[in-house]
């Protein structure tokens, strides 16, 4: 009977394929992981991907030129990264001018006299600031995914996706197939292993100064982009975690972790009681047998282009701080978890079907609070060190603004600053 024989040949095919796949997996993934050997496959994979992306992008550009269409370019095109940094530093300088106390320097630029009389032109300063904020602002920019110059064949990061050429679309289709079948299935296997070094997904291109690794009795602080930060750091050392208690899948994970070692999970309502938090932290670091604490002082996920305000709580505890800078390479997949847009499950799915997650981790030299330095000043010092090492913009804005409104005090502060300009001199004369 013919159907029986075709059925068996189909069976044979499937068996052979599966056998080949498993052999490949064992030979190239599991065994090297156990032995700690690398075949250099990952760096080859990365280089190939980059070449493909560049080709695809140039193909789209030439295709668009042929059709005389204008391509949407992300905000940073045409400027080198150095220039962008400079531009951002200028913006920061202006921002700091708003928030720092007692400085009216930005307003003085607009005044014709050095005196403190009111001028009709004064209002222009505020209207310009207003227009600038409307056009673009530092805060909302931190909470949406970074835009890329070269397209990495993921429609999620492309705003231009139109049918430009058959080849590019075919490549994209192939990419989808590859990512959702092969890479996704690889990751299923990998998650059964404890050692993540074998994962083609997570690639450390890091330069790590081993001697700066966090020790017991210290606190490790890092910038926060995604929950994967924890996995990456935990790959390289053991930590006790501090964080907000979550519900759902994350909550299950958190409870499971507590069974393995001591972590500190808070309710945000409880976190308002700072003494309680500080006490628990203090007790933990005092015990030299306990692992170093890992804290993300920003308090929320930021999109890895900048570092937002560090909350001072962890810097009030009297111990050594080990700063760590984490920077993801956005060309292979955007690691930022936009928690207002995606839940943890759909985020993980996106992560697992990206090309790869490439990150650089820098362990910075340990820092201690100096004499006479306040916790806030210390926090800012650590933040600048992390930002400059990771090539991120150092911002003073509070990450909490993702969910909450600016306090009324800030507006009052602005009003006070301006009043000082108007009438400040007369007050000092009294």
């Amino acid at each position, binding site marked *: 009977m013919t159907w029986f024989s075709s059925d068996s040949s189909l069976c044979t095919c499937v068996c052979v394929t599966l056998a080949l796949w498993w052999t490949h997996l064992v030979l190239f993934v599991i065994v090297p992981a156990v032995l700690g050997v690398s075949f250099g496959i990952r760096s080859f994979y990365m280089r190939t991907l980059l070449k493909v992306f560049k080709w695809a992008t140039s193909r789209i550009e030439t295709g668009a030129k042929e059709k005389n269409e204008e391509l949407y370019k992300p*905000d940073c095109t045409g400027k080198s990264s150095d220039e962008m940094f400079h531009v951002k530093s200028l913006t920061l300088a202006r921002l700091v001018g708003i928030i720092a106390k007692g400085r009216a320097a930005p307003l003085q630029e*607009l005044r014709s006299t050095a005196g403190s009389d009111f001028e*009709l032109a004064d209002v222009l300063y505020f209207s310009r600031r207003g*227009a600038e904020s409307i056009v673009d602002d530092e805060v*909302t920019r931190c909470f949406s995914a970074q835009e890329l110059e070269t397209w990495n064949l993921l429609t999620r990061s492309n705003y231009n996706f139109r049918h430009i050429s058959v080849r590019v679309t075919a490549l994209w289709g192939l990419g989808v197939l590859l990512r959702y079948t092969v890479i996704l299935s690889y990751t299923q296997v990998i998650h059964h292993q404890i050692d993540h070094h074998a994962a083609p997904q997570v690639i450390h291109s890091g330069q790590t100064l081993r001697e700066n690794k966090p020790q017991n009795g210290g606190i490790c602080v890092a910038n926060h982009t995604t929950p994967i930060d924890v996995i990456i750091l935990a790959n390289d050392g053991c930590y006790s975690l501090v964080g907000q208690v979550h519900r759902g899948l994350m909550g299950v994970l958190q409870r499971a972790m507590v069974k393995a070692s001591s972590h500190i999970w808070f309710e945000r309502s409880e976190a308002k009681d700072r003494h309680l938090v500080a006490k628990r932290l203090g007790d933990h670091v005092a015990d030299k047998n306990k692992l170093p604490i890992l804290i993300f002082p920003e308090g929320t996920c930021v999109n890895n282009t900048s570092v937002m305000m560090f909350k001072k709580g962890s810097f009030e505890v009297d111990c050594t701080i080990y700063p760590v800078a984490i920077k993801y390479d956005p060309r292979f997949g955007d690691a930022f978890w936009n928690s207002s847009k995606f839940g943890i499950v759909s985020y993980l799915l996106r992560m697992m079907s990206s090309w790869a997650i490439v990150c650089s981790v820098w362990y910075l030299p340990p820092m201690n609070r100096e004499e006479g330095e306040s916790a806030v000043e210390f926090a800012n010092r650590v933040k600048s060190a992390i930002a400059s090492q990771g090539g991120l913009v150092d911002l003073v804005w509070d990450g909490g603004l993702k969910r909450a409104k600016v306090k009324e005090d800030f*507006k009052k502060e602005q009003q006070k600053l301006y009043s000082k300009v108007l009438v400040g001199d007369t007050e000092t004369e009294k």
Partner: protein
Amino acid sequence: MCTHPPADEVRRLDKRFKKLDLDDSGELSVDEFMSLPELQQNPLVQRVIDIFDKDGNGEVDFNEFIEGVLQFSVRGTKEQRLRFAFRIYDMDNDGFISNGELFQVLKTMVGTNVEDVQLQQIVDKTIVSADTDGDGRVSYQEFCAVVGGLDFHKNMIVDV
């Protein structure tokens, strides 16, 4: 009226508009503007929004948004910027800055940090020095005579 802005600027602004338009209504309400932390601390934000809102319906649609923002771009003229600055004060849009209007605007800029009496003195002094035709209020020409001489308008440029 104004030159056509390049397509990529318009596209960027379109993207920005959509990001600000939280309820996808096609128009920006005051609340949606106020979701920007930097604007929340700007005392003059209500005036800026009112000027953007040309038809006075309380919301800013896309055309008003583009026109409003482009006044601040490099492509804007000195005339446009002067007009904008004048409108900040001229709350009822009658072409004159009255004593009361100047007082109100100044009040939002200083909050409670300056006594009303002192503020009124500043307002009176300013009106007197600017008001060349003696009608007790400042017209657009008088305003330009005071402000237009400075290079201020170059400081009003925003990178779009």
